[in-house]
């Protein structure tokens, strides 16, 4: 069986990818951000996951305005970094785990999640920046990836409750995979930020930290935060945090927090990340 051994929540700000690619990770501006990931990079080296289920959103890269899947799961063999307008990031291709991805996809559909299956797509900063933050700059990513793209752009996006439930269903699906696999699930995006309109630049340290507290808690209260609260409190793009609930839902009722880090700002965005371990009840 595949074991979900840990969950990671993390921002996926494009500028962090630029910092990595241009070797600026230890300068005055980026230093405090990357320092927060030092623990996690070391931990990942020890953990050596076989696969990461990487929950992210596409930012008008693989999907244009024509087609908007609520939940799309990548079942392909490999994915290239997307050209987001200034050339693709100089990072390795992302290797999929088609066996595991198709297994998960099939189980989710049987479990009444209305998945969209994707075979070929390019993956943007939403997926590649977290890889850089956790693994640095290897020749080849040290694990396979199952991309899970969530619509968090066009409203209504999926509810927190639905995201949590999807995480629970992913955990059930992993259990019935025949091969032994060390699987992590990452929820990415956020934390508070607003990239548009006269309110651009909104950040909310207090709310973001309350959200991190709720993720650590031994309950599922966090799944019930309504969209309007994310919008009011965390800016129009803070809604990306619903994707963290897919990760959290996959870990079960009780978790142990291994690491937590928060920093303001990275460009327009509050950066945060959390590493959680499921605790058997």
């Amino acid at each position: 069986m595949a074991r979900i051994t840990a969950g990671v929540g993390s921002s996926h700000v494009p500028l962090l990818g630029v910092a990595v690619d241009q070797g600026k990770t230890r300068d005055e501006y980026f230093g405090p951000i990357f320092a927060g990931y030092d623990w996690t990079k070391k931990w990942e080296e020890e953990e050596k996951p076989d696969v990461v289920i990487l929950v992210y959103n596409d930012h008008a890269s693989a999907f244009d305005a024509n087609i908007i899947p609520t939940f799309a799961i990548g079942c392909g063999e490999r994915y290239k970094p997307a050209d987001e307008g200034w050339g693709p990031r100089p990072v390795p291709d992302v290797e999929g785990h088609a066996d595991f991805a198709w297994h998960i996809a099939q189980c989710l559909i049987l479990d009444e999640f209305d998945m969209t299956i994707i075979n070929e797509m390019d993956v943007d900063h939403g997926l590649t920046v977290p890889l850089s933050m956790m693994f640095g700059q290897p020749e080849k990513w040290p694990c396979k990836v199952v991309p899970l793209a969530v619509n968090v752009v066009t409203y209504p996006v999926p509810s927190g409750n639905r995201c949590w439930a999807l995480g629970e269903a992913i955990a059930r699906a992993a259990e019935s995979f025949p091969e032994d696999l060390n699987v992590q699930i990452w929820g990415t995006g956020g934390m508070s930020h607003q990239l548009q309109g006269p309110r651009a630049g909104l950040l909310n340290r207090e709310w973001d930290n309350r959200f991190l507290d709720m993720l650590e808690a031994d309950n599922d209260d966090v799944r019930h935060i309504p969209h309007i609260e994310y919008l009011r409190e965390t800016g129009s793009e803070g809604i990306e945090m619903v994707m963290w609930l897919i990760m959290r839902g996959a870990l079960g009722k009780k978790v142990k927090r291994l690491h937590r880090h928060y920093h303001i700002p990275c460009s327009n965005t509050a950066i945060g990340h959390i590493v959680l371990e499921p605790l058997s009840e």
Partner: protein
Amino acid sequence: MNIHEYLEEFEDIPGTRVYTAARARKGYHLNQFAMSLMKAENRERWKAGERAYLDEWPLTEDQKLAVLARDYNRMLELGGNIYFLSKIFSTDGIPFAEACSTMTDMTFPEYRQMMLDGGRSPDGNRSIKGGY
């Protein structure tokens, strides 16, 4: 929850246009135009003649004028979504934060300083009606 109540709440957020289905419809071709700039050959043609390139797309005149003026607030009003619109300012070589600043009442240096100081506070920015 009822969809009408759900959507109505979104209009109560100061300085924010939530990208609802209604906006997605209105801005469909605007966003598809912007997305076309992801291809190098399209960027060339766009730079060679913005108006001519725009005229190939079924945008409203209002949308075209907003694009030519780089009036991002107006583009949002007309159904643009910031991730699509980002292809326009990326093509102009303008960073995301600078583009954001043009939508506020600040200069880019002022905006950048606000971010360094911890960003815009949510206080008073959560609800138009509630004023909190």
